[in-house]
């Protein structure tokens, strides 16, 4: 599944929930279901500080692809983190670097992507892209 296919799938899923409550309940469910990150990786180095919530992000590079695990101290952020990980994890560095994340906007949580909100999610996305660019440069060298 490409990044955009994954995003479209989420958007479709959310279309089933006309009520904001249902959307949020779904996101919160995602957050609760997913033990996102291995305890050993919830380190200071892997922390991404937002103004409101914190996110932990750990990348692994395997077979030309990046696999992310992540977590957040805020539940709604964690749910969104879960979805972003679902969308980006297991893709190639180039695909991640070039990806445009639009599903959060589309499902009506655009404030989570607004730079002025300055919460952890946006910083996490930036960080994921930085990793992607770094791995890309690395693969090119090899």
């Amino acid at each position, binding site marked *: 599944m490409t990044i955009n296919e994954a995003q479209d799938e989420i958007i479709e899923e959310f279309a089933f929930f006309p009520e904001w409550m249902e959307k949020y309940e779904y996101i919160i469910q995602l957050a609760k279901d997913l033990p996102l990150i291995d305890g050993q990786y919830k380190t200071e180095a892997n922390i991404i500080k937002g103004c409101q919530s914190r996110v932990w992000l750990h990348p692994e590079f395997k077979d030309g692809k990046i696999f992310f695990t992540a977590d957040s101290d*805020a539940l709604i952020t964690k749910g969104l983190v879960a979805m972003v990980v679902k969308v980006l994890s297991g893709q190639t560095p180039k695909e991640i670097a070039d990806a445009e994340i639009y599903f959060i906007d589309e499902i009506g949580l655009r404030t989570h992507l607004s730079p002025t909100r300055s919460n952890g999610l946006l910083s996490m996305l930036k960080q994921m892209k930085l990793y992607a660019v770094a791995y890309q440069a690395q693969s090119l060298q090899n």
Partner: protein
Amino acid sequence: MLQNDADIIAGIDVEKVRSDFPLLTRKIYGKPLVYFDNAATSQKPTAVLDALEDYYRKYNANVHRGVHSLSQEATEAYEGARRKVAAYINAAYDHEIIFTRGTTESINLVAATFARKFLKEGDVVLISAMEHHSNIVPWQLVCEEKNAKLEVIAINEHGELLMDDFEKKLTDKVKFVSITYVSNSLGTINPVQEIIKRAHAKNIPVLIDAAQAVVHLPIDVQKLDADFLAFSSHKIYGPTGFGILYGKEEWLNKLPPYQGGGEMIKTVTFEKTIYNDLPYKFEAGTPDIAGAIGLGAAIDYINSHGKDNIFKAEEELLEYAMDALTSVKGLRIVGPLTNRVGSISFLLEGFHPFDVGEILDKQGIAVRTGHHCTQPVMDFFCIPGTVRASLSFYNTREEIDKLVKGLEKARMMLG
């Protein structure tokens, strides 16, 4: 439901008051807005908006030195605003009122000019553990520059100032005390009169950060004997981008000028510049004329209700809110239970404030979440932040009830 009875408190008819504030009719996600972010900024009554319109439509002109009529009119209104502010906080002279951009700039002005002239290596500036960043960072900047030290009066687990600690830290090395009257994150009212008295006993000047206090408590700078006092227009029903620094004449005369430019000078040559008298010495550049006039109108508006009535109504609403909130399951108040005003910070035990805030927002309830520009307070309590509901006299008991219901929904959804 005794809604009618409940909503006329201390002669304040809340429904009538609400009709003065156009924004309060807003809907958010289809629900009537419940605005509990008053400590961040207050809403503006029509009277203030009309004053701004009137200025721009009828007598907008640059003030001072203008030979033409428009400029005279603008100047009179602008200086009239200064008189209104002086009267509101009972300053001894109008020229003790300096117009600034806000509390933050007022504090920076004092920190920078005081430090330039009076702060030496090894000196101490004393603040408290519950200060807003705007009353921390300016002092950090000047202490760093002058190799002085910033000392911090500790607070207890109720978010109250430890007066023992104050006494202990008020050494001979202390050259300045800068303290908030009311904490924006905790709601604590500090004993500033006592603090000033003790500092003055050692000839140490005191700045009072009244950003939160001025809109909820009567302020009399002469009775307080404050050397400096700062607040922002936007938190007291006035326009954004405007604020006040009160300073005792004696102190303002002692301090060197802050910014240079038009207005703050008497004569300029390249060799020598003579600074203007108070208050202009500290008001460089074209001032925020509309801002001053707007704040003046806000003060008129408050006076039209009687500030004591407003404060009394707020007190009763706060009591109602504290009762209602403490009955919410798992809700923990961060801050004192009594002797407080304005903001109520709390946590829903087990839930991140950000999550709670977001779910409240979806129900049309505007609260603030996070550190409220008082990170050290959050560090002290070892929490990532709080949910803060801050009240104004235009809020209703019904709105408090909605908040309680909203919190219960949040608990249900997140739990």
